[in-house]
């Protein structure tokens, strides 16, 4: 599914992440790591939002040479979304939906499911962190991606929404979508069929055994 080769990511000459080789097969993958360990950097790099050294392929599509096809197949939901405060959720969702080739029905369903209709037409500058998070989650599910990356998807949202996110991830997973989820806390994704658990630490990514011992070897 996703093949990462010789990935090196630096900020201003300072190396923050080094992944010699990593293959992520279909399924739900959980990335753990302390704050500042490099999870978000890794996810943003995979999503095509940051420059890097090395190679990343999603199926047959290379992140550089097939920039459009690659980005059509991979979506990203921010950990702490921060949008221009004069734009409404409606502006952002419709803009991304058009780029990701999402159908109007899908847009309406997601808006309805996560219950953002009451503030859909208000500028995001008036939103709480939970409302911003819901907007970013909708944006992450738009279109027909093969991979959805959700960075800390459960923070700042209420319990009812957490349940809806679980259900949405399960539904998409059964449709063949691969998920990369992150959390710096343990036991947030125990309700999901996690296939692999990774730890981002000391600039490296290493696989860990799943807590219940059901790790599936590559």
């Amino acid at each position, binding site marked *: 599914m996703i093949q990462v080769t010789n990935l090196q990511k630096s900020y201003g000459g300072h190396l923050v992440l080094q992944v010699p080789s990593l293959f992520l097969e279909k399924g739900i993958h959980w990335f753990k790591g302390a704050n500042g360990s490099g999870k978000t950097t890794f996810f943003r790099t995979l999503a095509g939002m940051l420059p890097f050294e090395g190679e990343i392929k999603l199926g047959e599509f290379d992140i550089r040479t097939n920039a459009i096809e*690659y980005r059509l197949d991979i979506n*990203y939901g921010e950990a702490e979304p921060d949008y221009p405060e*004069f734009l409404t959720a409606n502006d952002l969702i419709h803009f*991304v939906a058009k780029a990701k080739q999402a159908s109007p029905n899908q847009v309406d369903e997601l808006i309805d499911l996560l219950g953002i209709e009451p503030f859909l037409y208000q*500028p995001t500058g008036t939103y709480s962190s939970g409302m911003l998070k819901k907007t970013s989650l909708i944006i992450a599910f738009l279109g027909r991606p093969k991979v959805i990356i959700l960075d800390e998807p459960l923070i700042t949202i209420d319990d009812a929404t957490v349940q809806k996110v679980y259900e949405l991830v399960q539904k998409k997973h059964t449709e063949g979508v691969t998920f990369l989820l992150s959390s710096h806390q343990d036991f947030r994704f125990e309700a999901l069929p996690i296939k692999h658990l990774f730890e981002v630490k000391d600039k490296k990514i290493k696989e860990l055994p799943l807590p219940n011992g059901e790790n599936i070897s590559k």
Partner: protein
Amino acid sequence: MLAILNILRKTFVTEYYRLNTGFLFLVAMFAFGILRPEDHIALASYVFASPFLLVLMGLLFGLYHLKTVYFVRQRMLWNSHSFLFQLLLIPKPQRWVSWLYVQWMLWLPVALYVIFVSYYGWWTGEKGSVIATILYLFCVPLVGVAAYEYRLHRPNPDTRISIITTYFNRRFTKPQWFYFVLYLFSENPVLLFLTKGFTCILIVAVCRIYPTDRYDERLFSLAALTIGLVHSVIVLHMYEFEHLQLPLLRNLPLPLGKRFGQYGLFFIVLLLPETLFLFRYLPQEIEWDYVFVWWLLLMGILSLLYGRFLQYHYTMDLLLRQCFYTFFVGFFLIMFRLPVYLLAVSCLGGGVWLFHRYYYLSEYLVHQDGLKSRPED
């Protein structure tokens, strides 16, 4: 009283000048580096003789005043400055004098310049205009005092959304090229109006000066170069805005051509005031095909600036220095009669190439220097 003035001076005046050193330096470079003292005097006599230009000059100074007022009012919203609301406890006359002191200290560069040109205006016989200007000079700071008093009595500004905004939000979704236009109007109106005020006045001045002597089209080319470079701060803001507030753009499956088209549309909208002013005041001797090349040069400079930002992460200090050097290189190229269309095509071609090469390689790197406050902040 002295203690209060001391606090206000340290809180607002010193901070304002510290943060605006680059901006004031840039203005001083344009005002005194390019124009000679006799040009200022000639310009002053021309402005004092024309009510329209006098009003325009008043508007420009008004924009500067707005910038200072905006700075103080924004600072008053900072939590660290909440102690200033205790000014309500001191008697009104003392408070008003304190605000007047702050505003005059911030108004000082304009006041000194106006007094300088008024002196010459008086001797050229335009006494009515000079008196009106001096009255304006003394009255405008009172608006600042009123604005600070208003904020002092209403510490939490009303942020409710108007019915009209709600209607438009429901009726339309905003196109991507319009995002940064909205950003400028909502987040950086002072930068926008100061830039536009300066560039539009420059166009009027060039159009009016052109027929008075044996100038050629190079005068307009120099104006285009100046206008393009003055926009560098706005383009830098655009680069930062996208990286910091819309990082999701780079995750979208949009072809580079389409992305560049959005910037092109934005640049056309951004240059609309200059384009309209040029159409309105264009001397008859200037041909329309030159006007097109002139406009293309502006588009090229903006594209090139944005391409450079994608290629290299600029800090404000570095940007001001680079603009300064670029101006002199451009100045000599134009004065040595390099065809303007060649300059325009080179800038546009360079901008497109840099965009294509560096769009996905661009990264917003926060160096320690980048965290320093910037002049327009």
